[in-house]
């Protein structure tokens, strides 16, 4: 057990040793497996479910406690290297242990309570199974050593807690559950993005200080990582403005679920935020002072966010009429304290940083104690009366005095009255703020400190309102007391208040042994740790602050109560949900869906119109095709005709050719024949020619001979001719002489003739004169007369006595011929002789 005496300084100074143990795995897996067993058992006997679940809760708590001896000596680790392909790392240090402790403690008490309480609800089996599953995942979140494993359990937590929220299965519960689930899933995804980003930047998902590595990686903004993680865990932790799911879920689910949500599950978110601060904002050694600027500015922002959450949550709580909603906003407000503490711690880096951190850790522990108590009390009230509205309740202090006492003690705790645990943690956080003011100065920090006081005062106010509404005043006329409260419902309250008082009365013991020991996961200044270890909680100064708060609370509450201002609630639109989230979500969602649908539709339409156009185009092509077809038809027709004609022509041509062929063949035959004949003729001719040549030769020879002979003959002839010539010469001479004598004789003849002609002429003239005289005298001569006249006329020209051809007788002719012949022969021979 953690009460074991051990020096804090020793634990924090020595390097933590590594202990390999499967125990954390068992702690996580046991409730998960048990939930299945409970489901199986419940299907047989329903009554056992609650009992079994309570038993499992107790065993789990003991298992968690059994980690303490190990964790006191070092860090427990267990690594499944090949599970989920990335490895699953369990690692428990003291910080993990504190959270595991408070988670399992809260769960154990609530399960014990629920085993009696769930008899009034309709779905006890659903509750017990899933609360055990949720317990396992919640423990998983705080016991894992790397972000992937953490994320695994974180998502499991989201889903299994969803089933817890919708336990009543009515419309309201389902709506609230769905809202919670969506926020959880969205937060998970943002967280996942942060993990991706971190991993890609530094290559590890281990929960270890990574500030230097981040600073050394260029292009990586630690602010992005921090924001992602803060949103992711902040949704679980209910940081304003991410708290929206809480009031809805709390109002719709049974008290036992709310007690778990507020007491334990919120702490998973806080744990995450703590780890992130360690991851991103804490250097591995204090020497790296230059890196603090980011821590300081982030811390400043976170601190203000915490203060805002605190005050706004308190104001909202003040306005609620439903006790569960009031407690929900109270939880939000209380988480504001924790966040403020963390922010102040980061802001004070290098100074009194441990103050803020340990205040935050202690306050989350304290919150688990008193807020669980509140929810259990509210559960008892609901169990007894079946009512949750403040207006309808009243006067219960008489009927339930024990519950009234518990309630008053819890209020004192949460309001921070000295002697109770709330005082301790609030004092630490307040002191951190004072320290910041002291350290940095400035009006803003002064206001911050006052804000803190106002928040605390408001906290007191709304619990006064709660108290007045439920326990004081007249009870309603109608009798609503229905059931007797079983004693089992009181036991967890006893335990819780025991812790409340123990921490409140012995603060230094707890702070040293428990809270400060856990700070060794951070690299804190030793001075600041020692400062807290020796902190005097009951000094006048912090007590005075508590009293201030009380007075302020009364100053706020009394006038408000007098004028009944609590009943007024803010207008519906004036909430973060209706102002920011709902419109943004709706617009984004609508945009995405509309965009998607319209895009999808337009793509579809595009295809269809494409198809239509294509069809139209096809139709065009079709008509074109038809035209083309027609054209082809006509042209083919024409072509056919043409073909026919050409065929005919062809036939004719063919015929002609054939005929020509025949003729040609005939011709060829003939030619061949002719050729043969020619050949033969040539042959014959050649033979004949040869023969002729022969003959010619012979002839030639004969001719030769002839010529020779002729020559000879000619020679002889020439000789003869010569002789003839001489003969002739002599002949000529004789002839000449003869001719001369002839010529003389002829001359004589001629003159004789002349005289004959003259006498003939004179007789003719005479005759003619006689003829003319006859013509004139006779007139018409008859034929005879004429013939006679004619013969008479001729008679003068043909004088047979005259030389006339007709007078030449035959003898003379023959003589002439003979003469010519002789001349011819003479001439011939002369020529022939001369030619030779």
């Amino acid at each position: 057990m953690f009460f074991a005496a051990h020096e804090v300084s020793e634990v924090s100074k020595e390097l933590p040793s590594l202990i390999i143990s499967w125990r954390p795995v068992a702690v996580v897996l046991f409730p998960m497996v048990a939930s299945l067993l409970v489901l199986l058992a419940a299907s047989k006997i329903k009554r056992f479910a609650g009992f079994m679940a309570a038993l499992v809760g107790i065993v789990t708590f003991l298992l968690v406690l059994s980690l303490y001896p190990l964790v006191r000596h070092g860090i427990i680790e267990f690594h499944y290297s090949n599970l989920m392909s990335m490895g699953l790392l369990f690692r428990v240090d003291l910080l993990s242990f504190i959270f595991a402790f408070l988670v399992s403690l809260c769960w154990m008490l609530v399960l014990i309570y629920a085993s009696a309480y769930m008899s009034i609800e309709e779905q006890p089996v659903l509750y017990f199974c899933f609360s055990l599953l949720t317990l396992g995942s919640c423990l998983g979140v705080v016991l894992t050593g790397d972000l992937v494993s953490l994320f695994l359990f974180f998502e499991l937590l989201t889903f299994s807690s969803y089933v817890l929220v919708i336990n009543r299965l009515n419309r309201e519960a389902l709506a609230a559950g769905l809202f919670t689930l969506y926020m959880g899933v969205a937060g998970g995804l943002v967280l996942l993005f942060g993990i991706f980003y971190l991993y890609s930047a530094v290559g590890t998902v281990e929960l270890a200080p990574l500030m230097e590595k981040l600073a050394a990686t260029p292009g990586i903004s630690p602010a992005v990582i921090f924001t992602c993680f803060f949103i992711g865990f902040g949704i679980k932790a209910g940081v304003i403005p991410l708290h929206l799911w809480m009031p809805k879920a709390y109002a719709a689910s049974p008290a036992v679920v709310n007690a778990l949500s507020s007491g334990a599950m919120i702490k998973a978110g806080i744990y995450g935020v703590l780890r992130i601060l360690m991851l991103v904002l804490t250097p591995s050694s204090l020497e790296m002072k230059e890196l603090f600027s980011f821590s300081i500015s982030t811390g400043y922002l976170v601190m203000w966010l915490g203060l805002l959450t605190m005050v706004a949550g308190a104001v909202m709580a003040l306005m609620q009429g439903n006790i569960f909603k009031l407690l929900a906003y109270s939880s939000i407000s209380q988480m504001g304290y924790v966040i403020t503490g963390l922010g102040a711690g980061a802001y004070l880096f290098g100074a009194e940083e441990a103050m803020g951190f340990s205040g935050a850790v202690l306050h989350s522990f304290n919150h688990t104690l008193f807020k669980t108590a509140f929810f259990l009390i509210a559960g008892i009230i609901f169990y007894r009366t079946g009512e949750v509205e403040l207006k309808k309740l009243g006067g219960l202090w008489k009927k339930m005095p024990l519950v009234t006492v518990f309630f008053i003690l819890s209020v004192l705790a949460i309001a921070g009255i000295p002697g109770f645990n709330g005082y301790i943690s609030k004092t630490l956080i307040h002191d951190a703020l004072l320290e910041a003011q002291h350290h940095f100065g400035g009006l803003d920090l002064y206001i911050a400190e006052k804000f803190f006081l106002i928040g605390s005062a408001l906290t007191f106010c709304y619990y006064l309102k709660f108290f007045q509404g439920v326990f004081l005043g007249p009870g309603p006329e109608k009798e609503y007391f229905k059931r007797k409260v079983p004693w089992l419902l009181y036991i967890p309250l006893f335990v819780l208040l025991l812790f409340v008082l123990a921490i409140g009365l012995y603060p230094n013991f707890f702070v040293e042994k428990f809270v400060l020991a856990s700070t060794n996961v951070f690299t804190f200044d030793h001075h600041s740790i020692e400062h807290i270890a020796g902190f005097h909680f009951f000094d006048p100064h912090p007590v005075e602050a508590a009293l201030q708060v009380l007075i302020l609370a009364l100053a706020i509450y009394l006038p408000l109560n007098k004028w009944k201002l609590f009943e007024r609630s803010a207008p519906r639109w004036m909430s973060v949900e209706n102002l920011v989230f709902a419109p943004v979500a709706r617009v984004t969602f609508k945009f995405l869906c509309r965009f998607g649908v319209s895009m999808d539709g337009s793509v579809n339409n595009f295809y269809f119109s494409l198809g239509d156009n294509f069809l139209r185009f096809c139709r065009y092509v079709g008509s074109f095709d038809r035209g083309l077809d027609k054209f082809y038809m006509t042209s083919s027709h024409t072509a056919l005709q043409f073909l026919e004609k050409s065929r005919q022509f062809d036939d004719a041509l063919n015929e002609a050719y054939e005929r020509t062929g025949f003729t040609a063949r005939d011709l060829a035959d003939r030619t061949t024949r002719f050729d043969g004949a020619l050949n033969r003729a040539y042959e014959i001719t050649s033979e004949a020619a040869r023969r002729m040549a022969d003959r010619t030769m012979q002839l030639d020879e004969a001719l030769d001979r002839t010529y020779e002979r002729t020559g000879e003959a000619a020679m002889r002839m020439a000789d003869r001719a010569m002789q003839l010539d001489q003969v002739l010469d002599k002949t000529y001479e004789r002839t000449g002489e003869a001719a001369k004598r002839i010529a003389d004789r002829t001359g004589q003849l001629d003159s004789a003739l002349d005289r004959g002609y003259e006498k003939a002429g004179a007789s003719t003239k005479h005759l003619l004169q006689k003829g003319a005289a006859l013509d004139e005298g006779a007139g018409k001569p008859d034929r005879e007369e004429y013939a006679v006249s004619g013969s008479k006329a001729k008679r003068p020209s043909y004088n047979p006595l005259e030389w006339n051809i007709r007078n030449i007788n035959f003898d003379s002719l023959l003589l002439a011929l003979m003469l010519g012949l002789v001349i011819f022969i003479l001439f011939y021979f002369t020529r022939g002789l001369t030619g030779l």
Partner: protein
Amino acid sequence: METVIYNFLPIWAVMFPVFMSVIIFITGNRSEKLRNGLSVATAVVTFLSVAAMYPVIISGEIIVFTLFDILPGLGITVRVDILSFCLAAISSFVWMLVSVYSIDYMSHEHGGNRYFPIFIFTLGSTLGIFMAGDFFTLFIFFELMSLISYVLVIHEETREALRAGYKYLIMTIIGGLALFFAIILTFELAGTVSLNEGTLITVPSTLAFLAFLTFLIGFGMKAGMFPLHVWLPDAHPVAPSPASALLSGIMLKTGAYGLLRVIFHVFNVSVIKEARWDLILGVIAVITILLGSAVAITQFDLKRRLAYSSIGQMGYIILGMALLNEKALVGDVFHIFSHAIMKSTLFLAAGAIIWKTGLRNINDLHGIGKKMPVTMGAFTLAALAMIGIPPLNGFLSKWTLSLGALDAGAPYYVVVLLVSSLLNGLYYLPIIIAAFFGGEEHDEEAKIKVNEASYRMIIPVAILGIGCLAFGLMPNNIAFELSLKAASFLFGRVIP
């Protein structure tokens, strides 16, 4: 490490179902029981013969050989490397389970004699795609599968189914033609289309870009990539549920497989990076993811919602390719595994519900989880895996993909993935919630009065549902190991 091994298991795995589909068709006319038995036996034998390649493949060897050549450099070739094996193994595994599921599902439907032979034939052709040694062979099987699966789409023969089938057919043909064009371009540019040559195109010319684009159209059409996805939400819901499971779970992956081959074998990482084509892929992926997820929210037909979800999920796979680094590729291949298992679970579970109740509208399914706990349990596991809840397999793939995106220096892709996860949550969670926690306020008459489907339908659904958990959580995650090996193999080729 590349050795030519004459291992005839790939041919057996492809040809056996094709051959058996004939026998199943013949026996179907005689005996329904024999037909069903043979179908299951064929699927089992095929799965076993694919699984038998594991020792060869895991030792880093590649089965490569040529059956015969049609033209020089163009023939029917076989090639099984680790990526082929991954796809073939998951396909035949899911097919085997779906064949068991089909028996009871089809007993109430008409046309079982048509369904089973086609179902088995499609198995053969799908495996053919994965085991093809070159793009030519791949194309043949791709077309075969696409056209044959048309019969599965229009099985119901309703007006709606025929319309959807017609759309599917037209789109498929367009895709096939684009693919053919791309292959011809590649052949022209590189002289071969073999997968065994390493990078085929090393210069990002205009022609190469055209090839890339047409490859993207051809394979993207099948993968349901925006803006070619329009057939998918029509075709997948109208098919009988076991066929939808295969269409969505397996056959979409053939497109993804083809794109992977294009990126790593036709081109290579440096070419695509140099030409900035990864940007095209990235933009398409982002639109596909957001569109699929957003439109799914507006659908109230259960199967139609699942179909749109498939579009979104295929966007993840395309995104994984767009990132072009090894880590993203691991996530990519693993998401192929994951989505195959998740989506078949979802479709089979939806099929069981529709089969039992006849209800398709999500608003009518109040309280179904109490009546059919196993079916809805598996559905829940798969749906949560879809959202990316650890430790389910969907988370693992989303995780690896996101790390890949961050490695690539693109955190906005992670934001897209996470937004899509949220949208997945918005459309899956109400189904689950209504199934388990709804219906309390309804009066007795409105409540669904059915009980769980027959064991032959539950068992495959349950195995797949548990698969979602096992492949996320299990140590020695075989799918993840294979994805790691496949990614390093693909990158090992590119960067010597």
